[in-house]
């Protein structure tokens, strides 16, 4: 019962994968994300990968945050 943790797939087996979480490794189930590939980041919940992180969307989110900040800064400048 914890929020998902992003983990990088470094070894893929049939139903499980070894993932790296900031330098520590553990094995997670990948039954729910059969399409996962080596190098992908997955969201792990209670030992199972639930979703594959979409890098471009992740990047978009960060850009959006920056835009919000910049907008405010430029507003502040105004």
């Amino acid at each position, binding site marked *: *019962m*914890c*929020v*998902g943790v*992003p983990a*990088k797939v470094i070894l893929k087996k049939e139903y499980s994968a070894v993932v790296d979480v*900031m330098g520590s490794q553990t094995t997670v*189930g990948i*039954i*729910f*994300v*059969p399409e996962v590939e080596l190098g992908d*980041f997955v*969201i792990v*919940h*209670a*030992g*199972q990968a*639930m*979703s*594959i*992180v*979409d*890098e471009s*969307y*992740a*990047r*978009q*989110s*960060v850009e*959006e*945050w*920056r835009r*919000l*900040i910049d*907008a*405010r*800064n430029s507003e502040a400048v105004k």
Partner: protein
Amino acid sequence: MLEILKQSSNPEICRPLAEAVIEIALEFNRKFGRKPAFMEVCGSHTMSLARTGVKQVLKNEVNLISGPGCPVCVTDQRSIDAMIALAEGENRIICTFGDMMRVPGSAKTLLDSKIAGKDIRVLYSPVDAVRVAEENPDKEVIFLGVGFETTIPILTLMIGEAEKRMIGNFSIWMTTKLVEPVLRFLLDAGEVNLDGFLLPGHVSIVLGEESYQYLVDEYQISGVITGFETAELLSGIYKSIELALSGQAAISNNHPAIVSKTGNQVIHQWLDKYLTNCDEAWRGIGVIPNSGLDLKPEYDQFNAKKRFTVDVGEPRKTKCRCGEVIRGLIAPNECPLFGKACHPINPVGPCMVSAEGSCAAYYQYMRESF
């Protein structure tokens, strides 16, 4: 990619983001003469908002109300008592998530039973329960299946595993909950005035963005799918205020990197295979029809409720106000027991002990002094 993901807790992003949220909240206030009010549906959101400080930083400008999203907290007392009674049986191994251990039953807790010698095991990875069953063929191994949409799929995996390995001494005591029925209940009851919902990122992995459309179509209320890191929380709240300001109800996916439009279809297949809707009793609410999932009858052999009977009496009455906390009617510190008779070492209600409980979140992460 780790660099990108890390940005969500980068203070150089988070601090100005928080200021941006405050600014737009003030704009809302100027326009409507009150703070915008949102309910975080999910207990993990409650915890994250408290732990990261987002709730405190925004406390004067945004009204963040905790909803019925802690699976342990919403489980009604009779059900809690039943699970504790279950553990009293001979020759059983009870496997559970850690935060069930200290949840107060009417007479005792699972931890009390463990201390008294019952074999009760906290698992970090629930699927291990099947292995426990395999390794202890002369014991009945029962997993306490408490959870929302994020956890339920994992329960089906366990059944699948037990089925495949033909393990006869494994079962799950199912007491699961679904988000949609309880949101409908709250909206139908009209007890809380909200400008929108913060919708949980991980539940949404399963459900998908489109599944929330009923909020807009039937209740004309917005929902923003939100992650759990500081910047994700802040931007989710920002978007919620933006929507509220716009006057338009909409579902917004603020966590697109992991949440898709239609959810995880593989998981849907697993759920469809093993589970069927059932009525569930909610703490402080009562039975909500079709608000949970139970095993289909063809899997009765894995259904602990079919295999074991437990006797529970009338639940003990306490002054705990978890029911109201869950429905968002009062904040934890409005409960007169909060921090006095009730604290994490000696919790009176489940909200003070679950890792996602509102009272626990408040006690652990939101007190600035005492």
